[in-house]
């Protein structure tokens, strides 16, 4: 038990390191709600300005990565008067404790809110191994 905790911690520290960016510009952390029910984990993330084609969701080795590139909606000839937000990249990673059924992941992006349904995998069934 202790060992597994330490491993998790080591893993967490590794995840803290931010992956190197290939595109210039600021990176933003989207606000999220995460909740769990018996059969699934749901993630809701506020990502204003994100279009479905710019959204990347990646799940591997229990690490869920959300990233999206937002391009500026402003036209060339516009000059700025007041500026309170910038466009850039949304990026956030989570470590999931449950095993997720990758085939049944459901995503919806409406009005800048991403909803991600991650169904839990049914308990791994014991496999019969026959010796020939």
């Amino acid at each position, binding site marked *: 038990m202790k060992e597994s905790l330490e491993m998790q911690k080591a893993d967490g520290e590794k995840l803290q390191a931010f992956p190197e960016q290939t595109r210039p510009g600021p990176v933003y*952390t989207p606000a*999220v709600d995460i*909740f769990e029910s018996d059969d699934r984990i749901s993630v809701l993330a506020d*990502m204003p300005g994100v279009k479905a084609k710019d959204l990347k969701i990646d799940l591997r080795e229990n690490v869920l990565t959300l990233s999206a590139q937002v391009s500026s909606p402003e036209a060339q000839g516009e000059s700025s*008067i007041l*500026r309170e937000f910038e466009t850039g990249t949304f990026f956030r990673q989570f470590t999931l404790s449950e095993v997720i059924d990758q085939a049944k992941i459901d995503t919806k992006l409406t009005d800048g809110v991403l909803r991600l349904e991650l169904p839990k995998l049914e308990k791994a069934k014991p496999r019969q191994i026959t010796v020939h």
Partner: protein
Amino acid sequence: MLLRRVWPSRPAFDNPFADFGQLRREMQRMFEAWDGVREPQAGVFPPMNVTQDNDNFYVRAEMPGIAAKDLSISAVRNRVSIAGKREIPPENEQVSYHRKERAQGEFNRIVTLPSELAADKVDARYSDGILTLTLPKAEEAKPRQITVKS
């Protein structure tokens, strides 16, 4: 994508030093771009960008997950007000939250623009969580090209 707010919500158009303010903002943006990751910070809601070209002002506000029917926008003279509410519908089934960061509630913001508007021609669009208002300048406020006669 909220930035720390360091300038008042009403930009000072009649201030002779307004251009310095603009310069300062641009500098700050430049420095912030180097910082890399930014954490969400408390501040105004909704965060807005206001720009202009020769004919129009453009107000863009980040407000994800808002139903168009919950928005009320009005323009009078040189002011535009955006009011509304954001509701996050409760989950039907029994769920346990791990994180709850998304905020909800009512909001109301008024922006004063540098010149009069043609209030009857204002156009509002909401897509991908961003509200875009196109506010045509009043005819008398538009810059005019003056030809010099020789």
